[in-house]
């Protein structure tokens, strides 16, 4: 009797997660794939085939945007790592107690605020009539207003801003676990700052670097707001293209194909990152 009751309890616990994953994650993605391989040959008449994918590869605008999005995301990831590492190192190794908590919180606060608000802030700063342009005019660096918005640099600034926390947090966690005595031992044995960074600190921080990079890359790849608002209408970001196919053009079949390609790229990068660093998804993401 007792074991029946506990079996029932087990299934009651199992039901919600199975429903959630099946109905909201697995089946929709299967459905997305099915739609992506149907070609519309007449009103409400479809045929199975890879025509949508062929369209993607046949139309330079599509695959160039795809490549551009991927490259910009990789660049944003690299920048985030380079800018975030010294900060994470400073917080983890050069501050103690209260200062550490305060700096860490100061890093977190901007990220609890909606991405829209953050992007809006950058628009106020960067646009032609914005704060930076005006300030530069007042101090006399430039004579007329300049437009800092709607270019790739603006997108990059926004992307790095949006995702830097996701680099800093895992780095702080891994660097925190690096025993100071290892660095001291490196010095004691004659190491220099560079050689200790290269041989001791970075190898130790590798899991954090990988998980940070994976998350930042995914966030950049899937970002919609920042490229659209900071890059303007012609920002050519792949998510924007997917949105257009779905909402503006109402071509769901092509949109699904594009969506699936984006998913494939981001999964491939995650998989590659995990394989290269010999980490598992549970280890990397479970800590988030």
């Amino acid at each position, binding site marked *: 009797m007792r074991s029946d009751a506990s079996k029932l309890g087990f299934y009651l616990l199992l039901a919600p997660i199975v429903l959630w994953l099946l109905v909201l994650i697995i089946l929709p993605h299967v459905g997305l794939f099915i739609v992506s391989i149907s070609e519309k040959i007449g009103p409400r008449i479809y045929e199975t085939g890879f025509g949508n994918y062929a369209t993607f590869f046949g139309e330079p605008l599509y695959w160039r945007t795809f490549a551009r999005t991927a490259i910009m995301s990789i660049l944003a990831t690299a920048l985030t790592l380079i800018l975030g590492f010294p900060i994470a190192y400073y917080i983890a190794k050069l501050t103690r107690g209260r200062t550490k908590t305060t700096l860490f919180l100061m890093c977190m*606060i901007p990220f609890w605020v*909606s991405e829209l608000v953050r992007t809006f802030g950058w628009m*106020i700063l960067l646009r032609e009539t914005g704060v930076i342009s005006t300030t530069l005019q007042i101090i006399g660096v430039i004579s007329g207003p300049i437009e800092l918005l709607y270019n790739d640099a603006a997108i990059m600034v926004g992307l790095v801003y949006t995702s830097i926390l996701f680099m800093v947090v895992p780095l702080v966690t891994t660097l925190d676990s690096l025993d100071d005595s290892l660095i001291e031992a490196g010095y004691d044995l004659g190491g220099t700052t560079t050689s200790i960074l290269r041989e001791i600190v970075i190898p130790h921080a590798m899991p954090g670097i990988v998980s940070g990079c994976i998350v930042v890359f995914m966030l950049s790849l899937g970002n919609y707001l920042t490229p659209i608002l900071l890059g303007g209408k012609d920002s050519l970001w792949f998510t924007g293209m997917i949105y257009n196919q779905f909402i503006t053009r109402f071509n769901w079949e092509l949109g699904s194909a594009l969506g699936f390609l984006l998913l494939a790229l981001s999964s491939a990068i995650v998989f590659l990152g995990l394989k290269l660093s010999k980490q598992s998804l549970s280890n990397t*993401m479970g800590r*988030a």
Partner: protein
Amino acid sequence: MIPTIPQPRFTKWCYRAYVTAFFVYLALPLTVVCVFAFNDSVFPSPPWEGFTLAWFFGTEAPYIGVFHERSILRAIGTSAFVALWVSGLAVAVGTCNAFLFVRHEFRGKALLYMLMLLPLIIPGVILGISILVFSSAIANTLEDATGLWFDGLRPGLPLVILGQFSFITTFATLVITARLQKFDPSLEEAALNLGATKLGTIRQITLPFLMPAILASAVVSVLMSFENFNTTLMLVGSDSPLTITMFDKLKQGSTPVLNAVSLLLIVISAVLGLFSLFFPQSKS
């Protein structure tokens, strides 16, 4: 390098300057958003025209403050409605998941755990379109078969709630699981030993222990739901939540009303965020 290792003063100074510059970079956008909420001008940009609270309390055009702007108030209401549903559902399912993963051993547990983490690595836009495509397919099939309308499966708040729930649950699960793992099972055994029933034990011993994590994940869920954009964008119908409304207004041209809303959002997010961080600690 570390405080015990001597460094040239110049190096130290440069490092500090960089860290300061970084925090300025972090604070700058949010600061300007807040500052221009008080600018007595119809554009949120320099020059500074004087201090005003009209963008919060104004009633006359063009100075219609947040608290009198119907569309924004309605959007806040919609967002709150969505956030409460998402948070409630996510915490409920997350708690079940925590018990499942911590207390039960079964075949395929590792696989299920990995599947549970998947929503973290699926871009939000894709999550949105896949749910959109799937629910529309079901709606089409059902409508063809029955001749009735199934509006709940078309873009609208129910889909927005489901879409946000689909990935926020993963966060709730992770937070609550981490807490449950720290629970000492002998406390439950002691309660059972003292004559409590199984359900009574969970209610009186285990759930109170989990409460800080449950509350924290509820707060985080509300925050995430409030600020979600990508998934929501694909699933939204005629009632739009705050971020979508603000996005539409922003595309039409920004006014300091948006700054005022943003300021409120910043304050509320910071308070809720700090709460979610410190509440669990103060209890344990």
